[in-house]
């Protein structure tokens, strides 16, 4: 993972982690996109031999610690969402960016629903439609993150 500027991958993931915990006003907070998921999916599509399910699980675990939820919830949801990408990465690569954005939307919805179901299993949380607002922002964000990270990958020649 660290050969050929692989450290840059780690840096982008760390920035994504920070973006997902920066304090925000309550009204904007409901729309916070899934930064970590987007960045992970990009690297899984681009370099599936470097970033894989285990990476996703570790990132999810760190997110669990950062968010103070029961350990394993975000890790499990993140790994399952990235699994779909890893299995189908050759198909998804050939889609246009907007089609990819829709797939990311589905993945993000799946991620949030898995987190909700697991939480529901452990505590008595009630579903609110606002839990799925991040899906919208994630779809809108994907093309920009995709272009940015592709630039980063080509500039640093990460292989």
């Amino acid at each position, binding site marked *: 993972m660290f050969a050929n500027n692989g450290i840059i991958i780690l840096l982008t993931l760390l920035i994504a982690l920070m973006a997902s915990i*920066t304090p925000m006003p309550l009204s904007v907070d409901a729309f916070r996109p899934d930064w970590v998921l987007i960045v992970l999916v990009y690297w899984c599509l681009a370099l599936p031999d470097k970033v894989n399910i285990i990476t996703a699980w570790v990132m999810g675990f760190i997110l669990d*610690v950062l968010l103070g939820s029961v350990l394993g919830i975000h890790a499990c949801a993140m790994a399952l969402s990235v699994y779909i990408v890893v299995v189908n990465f050759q198909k998804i690569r050939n889609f246009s960016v907007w089609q990819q954005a829709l797939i990311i939307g589905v993945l993000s919805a799946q991620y949030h629903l898995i987190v909700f179901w697991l939480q529901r299993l452990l505590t008595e949380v009630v579903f609110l439609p606002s839990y799925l607002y991040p899906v919208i922002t994630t779809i809108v964000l994907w093309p920009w993150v995709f272009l940015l990270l592709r630039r980063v990958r080509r500039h640093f020649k990460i292989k």
Partner: protein
Amino acid sequence: MNPIFKHGPSPQYRIILVLLLSASLMFFDHQMASFETARGYLQSLVSPLQYMANAPKQMMNWASRNIVTRQQLMAQNEHYRENELFFHEQAMQLSIVTLENERLRSLLSSPVRAGIDKMFAEILSVDSDPYSHQVVINRGANDGVYEGQPVLDEKGIVGQILHVGASSSRVILISDITHAVPVRIQRNGLRLIASGSGQIDRLIHNFVPHSADIKKGDLLVTSGLGGKYPEGYPVARVVLVRTDESREFAIIYSKPVAQIDRLRYLLLLSNTPSKEQTTTPRVDGASAVKKDSTVAGKS
């Protein structure tokens, strides 16, 4: 050069491994609570990330503190001076009342209340997870923070310490769905349990009979039962009382008096150990973090 045929375990093998790992983590963390000490270390490990994530907000705060006009500062100063006078007068009264209260308590041969130490803390980050209401503060085990310590803002109870790291710790808010506070109505002393609802501006009171004397606007203060929260701090104000006779119990909602969505500075209370322990019966675990809502029903 990327190999055409990938090496290493297949994705199927990996996902099964990872799912098993998650399931066992969840089981041991939630059911057995066996990660309490490890949580402290993990919290210390990730606290640099939290400090860094907080940097933009700190910069904004710094800017807003430094870019103020002279007029604003003067007006603020004036306001503080007035407040100080006001509080001084109250403090004078308070010391007399405290002395009197202590004397009366000693006459009644009931134990004198232990003094309370206070510590100042600042919010480091607020969690974006919609399922749990927690904040991280900039004090940890190095400053003497301990688990279960009550946390206040200038208006009322905010929550209690959940996990302690070396230099930061995590506070669970009273509105969290897994948290409950034993309270009483200030007006008539009726005891209730204030359970979090998962919504930032609502606490729920379960198992209150229809005949209970409770009105909209009643102030709820901590009852001191459970031994976590000291007695008499304001918690919430009743906003809705619905006595629908077709239901078993009355529906009662209240709104926390602390501004939980606008926290910035907090006060940590710690009970200094005194020789005379209170002899009042305690409902153990009533204010503890409950794992499911049935705890509220039992107490």
